[in-house]
């Protein structure tokens, strides 16, 4: 599983951080997502897909 985030679209809503804190965080300036793990373990798939669904600007894509 590979995660791609579009940081141009990201508005730092943080829904992904709440859905999958193992994978997503906000960066130090709090203005854009920080991808902690671009290829997370399969066990996190449900959380990651939830994060992608929750994103208000559809900035997260899950491949594979």
């Amino acid at each position, binding site marked *: 599983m590979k995660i791609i985030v579009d940081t141009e679209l990201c*508005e730092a809503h*943080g829904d992904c951080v709440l859905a999958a804190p193992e994978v997503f965080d906000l960066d130090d300036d*709090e203005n854009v997502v920080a991808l902690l793990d671009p290829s997370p373990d399969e066990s996190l798939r449900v959380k990651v897909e939830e994060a992608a669904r929750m994103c208000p600007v559809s900035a997260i894509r899950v491949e594979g």
Partner: protein
Amino acid sequence: MIVGGGLAGHRAAKALADDGFGGKITLVGDEPHYPYDRPPLSKKRLSGEIDDDACAYALDGLDEVEWRLGVAAKRLDLERRRVVLVDGAEIEYDGLVIATGRAARRWPNLPAIEGFHTLRSLDDCHALAAAATPGKRVVIVGGGFIGCEVAATLRGLGVDQVTIVELADQVLGPVGSEAGVRAAAVHRGNGVDVRSGVSVAGFDGQDRVEAVRLSDGEALAAEVVLLALGSVPNSEWLADCGLELAAGAVLCDEYCFAVGADDVVAAGDIAAWPLSDKHGVVSIEHWTNARDMGPTAARNLVAPPADRKPYTSVPTFWSDQYDLKIKSCGFVKGADRLTIVDEDPEKNALVVEAHRGDTLVGAITINRNRALLGYRRKLEEELSS
């Protein structure tokens, strides 16, 4: 069958499709457009930074949906399980999702002259963008989120004369005075004329609006007037159908089922439901509520009764104005005390906690995105416990 082609309706259809729902899905929407995202209409779409396609929701997985777009529902016949559309068509359903949302509140007895706008739909956005161009004088009646976001966007487009007229003593009432006062200062710093504590007495103009008359006697010259007066539920089509309405919203149980009907659910800002004993019946007009309630309502509608899940949600919203990211969660309106716990004037950053008695009921942040996540976690834990 889903009535309403906004976020809640789209997410309801998507949830059913993702779950492999084998039945037929019909989605009725009063707008001619496929479902699209509304938050950009006062911001990036209005500014032209993004186009209509960028606002459209993805339709993958929805190939089997029958779309009835550009035609509103006129009447619901609960007994015969039919929705009557304004074009006369009658659609029979086994299960119904009501997701008709809300409409911009209208000014009573508005003169039939040109120059007035509301902003709720993509077509509204196109009309406003075409009218509110540099050189035009724009008066925004209502200093809520839509009004303030549009003011910020228009200033960014080089529209020099933008005035906000707000009846209350401050703009952005729902985020409390601490954040509202700071936001108003940023608007003024950006050249917006913010008039609060004053109401509109009427409008002047023969064929087109020429001025907005205020209660203090002043007349503000204007070619464009945006009426940003909040919203009203799109429930006229449900009048006298037998469903119970609460302030115009469809009263539901905690599983999103309309009270008194076992084959009708409602979702998004047309729905009212008992959130908890403490909070009572609520109706939440935020984007996030439509996103979350649409799927839950649709899944409960088709699930065996034992598998239905109660719907809970901590209200969350955001508003982007200039470089301010204003966010809030919880129930700020129910607070009896707002306390500033962090402030950084250099970054225009602010964190405000809302308490009722000793209990934290909500928070407001400006440019403190991480802090808000902490409050959301806390309130969500509390609500689900």
